Each structure stands twice: as structure tokens, then as C-alpha cells.
């Protein structure tokens, strides 16, 4: 009897099943989003590569401007005048929509690097921004290492 009751309920339910859609606020990855004031999208830089650190569980994207992309593949170990980079790094989090994936979680930092020539000398302008609000850091220790790190990155293969 219980079975038959269940079956009738199911028949009824399938005819009436209707669930509200998930709201946009629950779907936008708020903690990984960049503050609007940073205006990354207005730089129109393109992805050079993406990478992950499996020990620190971070994930990063390295962007570059047109100049970088025009000479990709060529030797750019020391950088070339006119190149401009942005490196964004996030803590990873589990993807609530797919068991088997990790996606960007808390925003950790953004780093910018521009390369210029002045009197046949290469000048690097490096700046780090930290935390959810991407606060500009005044401390410059370790900057030279970060410049080398950014310039050492190989481009991803993209047809």
C-alpha cells in the first residue's frame, strides 16, 4: 500500500517538479574577484600562461600586453622594452560543482611588471598588490627575484 502511495506521489511530483534557479550572488566567485579599482580588464592584456603550486595550493595567471605577445617564443630572459605583465595569484579551493577540480579561492596578490629602456639600460618597474583589496605594498625586498620569476615563465601552447 505504501508503495502504491509513493508511486502516486511520484507521478504527481514529476508533473509538477519545478525548482527556482540559483541566484547570481551565489554563483559569482566573490572571494576570487578582483576589486573594481584594479581595472585589470581595461589593460587588455592576454594570457601568457597559467600555473599552479601544489605545495602552497595556489593558482596563478600571467598576462602580457601586445609587445610581450609579439615576441613570445623569442629569447626574453631579460625582458624587452615596452613589455608589460600582470600576475594574479589565488589560493585554491575545491569546486563545489565538480568533485575532481580546484578553482580560484581567496585572492592573494597581483603583481605588475613593466620593462623600459633608458640610455641603453633596461629598467624594471615592479609593484606588488596584496590581499582581497589588492593593497599596494611599499616593501621592495625580493622584487628582483619576482622580476626574474615572471620573465622566466614559458608561454602556454595556444593554437
Amino acid at each position: 500500500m505504501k508503495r502504491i502511495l509513493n508511486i502516486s506521489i511520484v507521478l504527481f511530483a514529476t508533473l509538477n517538479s519545478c525548482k527556482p534557479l540559483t541566484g547570481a550572488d551565489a554563483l559569482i566567485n566573490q572571494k576570487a574577484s578582483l576589486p573594481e579599482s584594479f581595472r585589470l580588464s581595461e589593460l587588455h592584456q592576454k594570457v601568457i600562461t597559467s600555473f599552479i603550486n601544489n605545495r602552497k595550493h595556489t593558482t596563478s595567471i600571467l598576462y602580457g600586453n601586445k609587445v610581450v605577445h609579439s615576441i613570445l617564443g623569442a629569447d626574453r630572459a631579460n625582458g624587452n622594452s615596452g613589455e608589460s605583465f600582470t600576475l594574479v595569484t589565488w589560493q585554491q579551493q575545491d569546486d563545489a560543482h565538480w568533485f575532481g577540480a580546484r578553482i580560484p579561492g581567496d585572492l592573494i596578490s597581483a603583481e605588475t611588471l613593466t620593462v623600459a629602456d633608458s640610455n641603453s639600460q633596461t629598467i624594471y618597474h615592479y609593484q606588488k598588490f596584496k590581499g582581497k583589496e589588492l593593497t599596494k605594498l611599499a616593501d621592495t625586498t625580493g622584487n628582483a627575484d619576482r622580476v626574474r620569476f615572471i620573465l622566466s615563465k614559458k608561454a602556454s601552447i595556444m593554437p
Partner: protein
Amino acid sequence: MKKFMLIAASAMIILLISLQFFRPEIGHLSVTGDLQAPANVKAILVRACYDCHSNQTNLRWYDQIQPVYWQVASHVRQGRKGLNFSNWDKLSPMDRKGKLWEAVNQIEQGAMPIKSYAFVHSDARVSKQDLAVLKNYLIGTVHETPNDTAKLRAREKQVQAKADQNQQKLPESLNGITYIPDYKNWQVISTSDRFDNGTMRVIYGNDVAVKAIKEHHINPWPNGAIFAKAAWDKLEDEQGNVTTGAFKQVEFMIKDDIKFRQTNGWGFARFKTPKLKPYGKDVMFTAECISCHKPMKDNDFVFTFPIKN
């Protein structure tokens, strides 16, 4: 009036009885190679999934009564088509792995077993503990090897080939979607580190998609929104640094609820390798995309949690 009710009731009964004779065939096909998995893992899948995803369908008496039987038979036929544990030998080792991750994800998202079925067959429900058993098993199958020589070589080969590569005409998918090279100029809306299959991805959105994100109008997504997802092998070194290896594919989802009405409002396309080979044997390749994206139906079939830039 009474007489009319009596006639109506008898007609109803006669109709129900005659319905019992219309029986779509579900067939008892052979088991060519059954799923191989640890006993505790397999027991859960047999109990919860085998009625519709194997050739060992075990229908109870209450499944066999019309009009219920109609729905059951159709579920069995469709279920077997997408996933059949009785023909496990027909899948490549990689596809077996992929199907298992997909299966566990369908359970986790509440899409499988089908709700109406689980409601009646209470023994088929997958408990939290069952799900944990399945997930632990899958986690145990993940092996990330540092300095994987095969993967390193695959990347090197693509680098070499790139030099003498000249795309003449833009490739087109079997459902008529032309490859969109411009995706590289779009905004990144997320990345994904897929430890289930050893790949890493970057997900891009076109201007329409990015504007929709800014305005929080993403469910449903507006017509004209396009996503591109590029995937590479993961290359790991001893320090745990993971970089992109060989380029696997780029996939697109184009929103147009009229043009692509038959595929849930999205035009799906996948182009493989740097040669951008259109994926699939025929137009029906989209059925694969849709079945895996279906648990996201309350989010307009989109997995990605977009990031604002």
C-alpha cells in the same frame, strides 16, 4: 449521473488493463565485461545504479505496472546508452576513469539516481557514507608523477610542430560551429585544476558574458554570451610547480536560446589538439556534453563560478 460515473470508471479500468499489454521492450542483453572495482565500491553502484546502467536490470513488480513501466523502460534504455557498467570492457581505461568521476559527480549533485526512482526504491538511495566511500576510492586512483617524460615529450612535440603550422581555413564542428580564434582576447573568468584527469584549464568569457557578470545577470545567461575553455596537460616538477604541457583542446558554449533550443540553449563545440580537430563522430556528440552538464540545470547548465576582473 451514477450510471455515467460507473461507465467512466469502467472505461478507466479497461484502459489501464489494456495499457498493461503495451510493453516497450527493455531487453536482457549480455554482460560483455562487468565493472571492475573494489567490492564495497561496486556494491553501492550495483544497488543504486544497475537497474538503469547495466544489462542486469532487476525490475520489481511495481515497476512493471503501466503507466509506471513506460517511464521505467525509457529510463533504462536511455540510462544504458550513456553509461553501461555491463559493457565496461568496451571503454578505454581513460574513458572508464572519466565515467566513474562523472558518475560520482552526478550523485553528489543530486542528479542520480533519478529522484522519482530513488523515492520508490528506497534501497537505491546513496547515503553520505556511501558517497564518501566512492570519493575515497576515486581520490586513491589519482597519481601525479613529477617530471612525467611522456607528457614532457608531448609538449616538446607540439612546440616543434608549431613552427611549420599554417592554418588555412577555420575548422567547423559537426553541429556547424566555426572555431573562434578571438577567444584569446577575451577576459578570463576562472581557471580549473582538474586532478581527476591531470589537466588544467583557463575559462574565458566574451564581452557579453563579462558584462552579464558585472551586472549579475547570469542565470539565465543572456543570448550572445560565449565561453571558451582551453585545456592543457599538467606538468609537475619535484617542487610541486605545475605548468602547462601539451595543448589538449578548446571548447565553446554559445548561448542562443532560439538557434540552439534543442541543446538547452547552448551551442557546444570542441576542437582537439593544436590542429583543432572537430570532436565527435556525428552531430550527436553534443549529447555527451549535455549529459555531463545536466546536473547544472539550475545554473543554466554552466559549471563555472565566474570571477569579476
